[in-house]
C-alpha cells in the first residue's frame, strides 16, 4: 500500500493555545484510519486543516506525492477529499438525487437533466453497495439514510478520501452496523476513509490503523491487530481506567412505582407501562430513541400529563403533580436534552447551578438568596467534577461552556440535591472518558447509598455497565426485561428492534 495522503508535523496555534502540536498522519489507498481522542484533543482541528477550513501554523500536506495547499473546502473537494459532517447539510424538501448532485448537476443547455442525475446516483449506490431511493424526499428519510446521502454526495463529487466526523453518534445500533459495513465496502473498492470518533468498539471493528490524539499531540499510531480497546482508552486518557466500585446488594424496598402509565397525544405514545425502581437499584431503559422513553421520563417528572395510570414516589402518589411537588417528594433529574431542558444558556454558570436551590432554607435568609454561601458550593462542584468554566469562572455564560462541561455542571447540580430518586437521561452524552468514568462512579455510589436511579441511555455499553435491571422499550411499551446477569448487547438489540428472545437462539429482525 502506498500512502495516498500524508500530513507532516501539522501545528495549529490559536494565540497561546496549541490545538495541534506537530501532528503527523498518513493514509494509504483502501485504508480505514481512525482518529480517536477525547473532546478537545484536536481531532476536529486536524480535519479542518485537511479540508482547507483552517490554515496550519506550520506543517505540510502531501497528497499523492505532491505538496498541496488548500485555501478552502472547494480546493479540498477538487483534490478528492470529501467530508461528511456530524450535522448533515441537506435540504429536506429536495429529493435524495437533488441533494447528491447539488453544485455539480448534469446539465444540457442550462437545463437540469433529472433522469441522468437519478441514473448516476443509482449507479453509485450499486457500485458501493449503499442502498438508497434516489427519488425519496430527504425529509422523509431516516437519520441513517440521510447519512448515506451525505456519503454518496461526497462520492459523487469524486472523493477518494472520505472523512467521517463522529458518524455513529446519531445512529441506532442497527444503523451503526450498516454504516460500519458501508465503510468496509468503501475501503474494499479502493477508497480511503478517515473515521473520527471516540467509540472504541467501533474503531476496533472497522479500522485498519488508529491514531490517538491527546492534548493536541499524537500519543500513538497503532494497527488494529496490535491493540485493544483498553490500550486505546489508556492512550486517550493518559492513565489507567478505574474499575467501577463494587455493587453492594441491598434490600429491594420499592421507591418508584409506575403502574399502567399511559400518555396519549393524538396517538398513544406510552402504553400501559408498569415497573418499579427499588432503593439501591439502577434500572436501565434501553430502546431506539422515540419509542416512548422521553414521554415516560416527562410523565414521571411532572413535565407532561399522563392520561392513565399512577406514579408513586416514596409511597406518595405523585401522578400528574407539579414538578415542584414531585421534586420535593424526592426526585432529581438529569434531562435528556441539556440545552432544551437543562440550562439557560444566557445565564451564568452560578445561576444555572442555582436552579432548585433558590428557595431552600439553607440558602435563604429573610427572603434573600445567600449567593455567597451558594457560590462556595458551586466552587466545590467545579473542583470535584473538573468543570472547565472559562475565564470568567462562575460568571461565565453557561452557553459558552463546552457540551461536556455543561453536562458535568448539570450532573453535579442534580446529584447535589441528594434525593432518594434520580432520573439520569443520557448522563454522559458528549462528555469525555475521564468525565464519563467520574459520572458513572458517582451514580454507582449513589446506588450503593440506597438511592434508586432510572437510567435512560442510547449507549448500550452504558446501560450494561451500570444497570441492575434492564427494561427495553419498543413502541411505547416495555417489550422486555433482562436481569444484569442475562443481559447482553445482542439480546437488547433484538428487543429494541421489535423482536423477541423467547428461546435463546432465535433471532428476529
Amino acid at each position, binding site marked *: 500500500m502506498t500512502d495516498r495522503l500524508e500530513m507532516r508535523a501539522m501545528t495549529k496555534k490559536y494565540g497561546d493555545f496549541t*490545538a495541534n502540536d506537530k501532528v503527523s498522519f498518513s493514509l494509504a489507498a483502501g485504508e480505514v484510519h481512525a482518529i480517536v*481522542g477525547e*473532546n*478537545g*484533543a*484536536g*481531532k*476536529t*482541528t486536524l480535519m479542518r486543516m485537511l479540508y482547507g477550513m483552517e490554515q496550519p501554523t506550520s506543517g505540510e500536506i502531501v497528497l499523492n506525492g505532491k505538496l498541496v495547499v488548500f485555501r478552502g473546502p472547494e480546493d479540498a473537494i477538487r483534490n478528492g477529499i470529501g467530508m461528511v459532517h*456530524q*450535522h448533515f447539510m441537506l435540504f429536506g424538501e429536495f429529493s435524495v438525487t437533488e441533494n447528491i448532485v447539488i453544485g455539480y448537476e448534469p446539465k444540457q443547455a442550462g437545463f437540469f437533466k433529472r433522469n441522468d442525475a437519478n441514473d448516476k446516483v443509482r449507479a453509485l449506490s450499486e457500485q458501493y453497495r449503499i442502498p438508497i431511493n434516489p427519488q425519496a424526499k430527504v425529509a422523509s428519510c431516516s437519520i441513517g439514510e440521510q447519512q448515506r446521502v451525505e456519503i454518496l454526495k461526497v462520492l459523487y463529487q469524486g472523493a477518494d478520501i472520505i472523512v467521517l*466526523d*463522529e458518524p455513529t*453518534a446519531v445512529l441506532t445500533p442497527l444503523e451503526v452496523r450498516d454504516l460500519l459495513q458501508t465503510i468496509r465496502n468503501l475501503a474494499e473498492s479502493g477508497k480511503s476513509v478517515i473515521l*473520527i470518533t*471516540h467509540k472504541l468498539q467501533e474503531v476496533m471493528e472497522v479500522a485498519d490503523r488508529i491514531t490517538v490524539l491527546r492534548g493536541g499531540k499524537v500519543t500513538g499510531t497503532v494497527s488494529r491487530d496490535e491493540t485493544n480497546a483498553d490500550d486505546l482508552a489508556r492512550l486517550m486518557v493518559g492513565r489507567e481506567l478505574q474499575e467501577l466500585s463494587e455493587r453492594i446488594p441491598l434490600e429491594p424496598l420499592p421507591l418508584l412505582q409506575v403502574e399502567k402509565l399511559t400518555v396519549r397525544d393524538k396517538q398513544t405514545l406510552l402504553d400501559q407501562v408498569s415497573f418499579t425502581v427499588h432503593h439501591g437499584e439502577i434500572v436501565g431503559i434501553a430502546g431506539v430513541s422515540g419509542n416512548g422513553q422521553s414521554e415516560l421520563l416527562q410523565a414521571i*417528572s411532572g*413535565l407532561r400529563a399522563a392520561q392513565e395510570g399512577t406514579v408513586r414516589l416514596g409511597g406518595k402518589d405523585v401522578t400528574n403533580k*407539579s*414538578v*415542584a411537588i*414531585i*421534586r420535593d417528594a424526592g426526585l432529581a*433529574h438529569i*434531562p435528556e436534552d441539556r*440545552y*432544551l*431542558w*437543562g*440550562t*439557560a*444558556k*444566557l*445565564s451564568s454558570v452560578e*445561576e444555572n447551578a*442555582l*436552579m*432548585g436551590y*433558590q*428557595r431552600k432554607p439553607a440558602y*435563604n435568609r429573610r*427572603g*434573600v*438568596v445567600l*449567593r455567597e454561601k451558594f457560590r462556595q458550593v458551586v466552587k466545590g462542584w467545579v473542583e470535584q467534577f473538573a468543570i472547565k468554566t472559562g475565564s470568567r469562572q462562575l*460568571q461565565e455564560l453557561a*452557553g459558552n461552556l*463546552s*457540551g461536556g462541561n455543561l453536562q458535568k455542571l448539570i450532573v453535579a447540580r442534580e446529584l447535589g440535591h441528594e434525593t432518594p430518586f434520580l432520573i439520569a437521561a443520557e448522563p454522559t452524552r*458528549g462528555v469525555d472518558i475521564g468525565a464519563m468514568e467520574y459520572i458513572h462512579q458517582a451514580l454507582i455510589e449513589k446506588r450503593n447509598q440506597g438511592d434508586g436511579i432510572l437510567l435512560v441511555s442510547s449507549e448500550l455499553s452504558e446501560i450494561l455497565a451500570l444497570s441492575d435491571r434492564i427494561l427495553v422499550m419498543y413502541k411505547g411499551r416495555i417489550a422486555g426485561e433482562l436481569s444484569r446477569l442475562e443481559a447482553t448487547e445482542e439480546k437488547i438489540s433484538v428487543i429494541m428492534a421489535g423482536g423477541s428472545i423467547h428461546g435463546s437462539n432465535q433471532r428476529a429482525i
Partner: protein
Amino acid sequence: MAAIKELSKSLVQPLLAVVIGLLTGALVIAAVGESILGTYQEMWKGAFGSFYFFTSTLARATPIMLIALGLSLAFRAGVFNLGAEGQMVLGAVSAALVAIYLPAPGMIKIVAGICTGMAVGGFWALLPGFMEARFRIPLLISTLLFNYIAVLFASYLVTEPFRDRSGSAALAQTVMLEKSAWLPKLFAGMSVHAGFLFAIVAALLLFWVLRFTPFGYEVKMLGQNSLFAQYGGINRTRVMLTGMFASGGLAGLAGTVEVMGAHYRFVDGALTVPGFAWTGLMAALLANSHPLGIIVTSILLAAFQTGAMGVERNTDVPLELASVIQAVLILFISAKFSYDWWKKRKAKGGETHGAL
C-alpha cells in the same frame, strides 16, 4: 461593582441608538433649514436649561418610568404586556374617584387612592394573564385589546356618571380633588411631585427583587428558558400572574400619581394623548429591562419631549422632531430584537457537539 459593570454594559447599545437618533434628527433640522447645533442647544435648554425645565422633564419622566418598570418585570419573565395604557388609565380613574368620594381626611384619601390605583391596574393586567393560563389566549393580543376597553370605559365614566358639570362643560373630566388629597410638589412652583420619588424607590426595589430574591431568580430563568424553569420546578403560571399583577400595578400607580400629583382630577385623554405608555415601553426596551437603566432612559426620553417643546417655542423646527428621533430609536431597538432573535436561532442550529 459587578452591578455597575453590568449596568454600564447594558447602556452601551442604547447610547449608540441615541447618538444615531440625534444624527438623523440633524438631517431633519438641516432639511428645515435651521442650524443643527443651534436647534440642539435649544433642545438641551428646553429639557435641562433651567431648574424649572429640568424639574418639568423629571415630572414628565415620572409616569414613563413607572410604566417602564412594570413592563420590564413582565419582559424579564418572558411575558409581553402591551396593556400598560389601559392599566394606567383604569388605575387613574379609580384612584381619582376614590380620592374624591371617600369621606376621609386627606392623608387617608392619598393612601386609599394609591392602593386602589395599583390594585385596579394590577387586576386589569391579571385578567389577560388568567386568560392566557386558562385558555391560552395570547397575552400580546389580549393585553393590547384590553387597552380599548379600559380607555373607553374610563372615558364613559367621566362623560356620563362622574362628569364635572360645575365648570366649563367642554371637557370630560371629574371634579377636582380636595387640596388635602394632592400629592405634594417636591419644590414650590415646580411641576415635579412626590410621584417621582415613588418611581425612584420602585426602581431600586425592583432592582433588589430581581437581583437578590428567589422570585427575581425565577423571573429571570422563566424569561430565558421557560422549559428549564419548568423542569426546575418553577411554577410558570404563578410567576407569570405575579409578574402581570406587579406590572399592571406599577402602570396603575403611574396613572394615579399623574392624577394626584399633576392634574388633581381625571381628565379624559390627559394620559393617553402624551403617549406615556408607549414611551414607557420604549424606555424599558432601550434600557434592556434593567431597572436602574430605566431611570436613565425614561428621563432621556422625557427630555427629548420637553426639549422639543423648547425647540418649537424658539425655532422653526416643529415639535415632531422628537417623534423623528424616537422613531429612529424604535427602529434600532427592534433591529436589536431581530438580531438577538436571529442569533438565538443560529446558536440553536449550530450547537457544537463532540470534538473541538
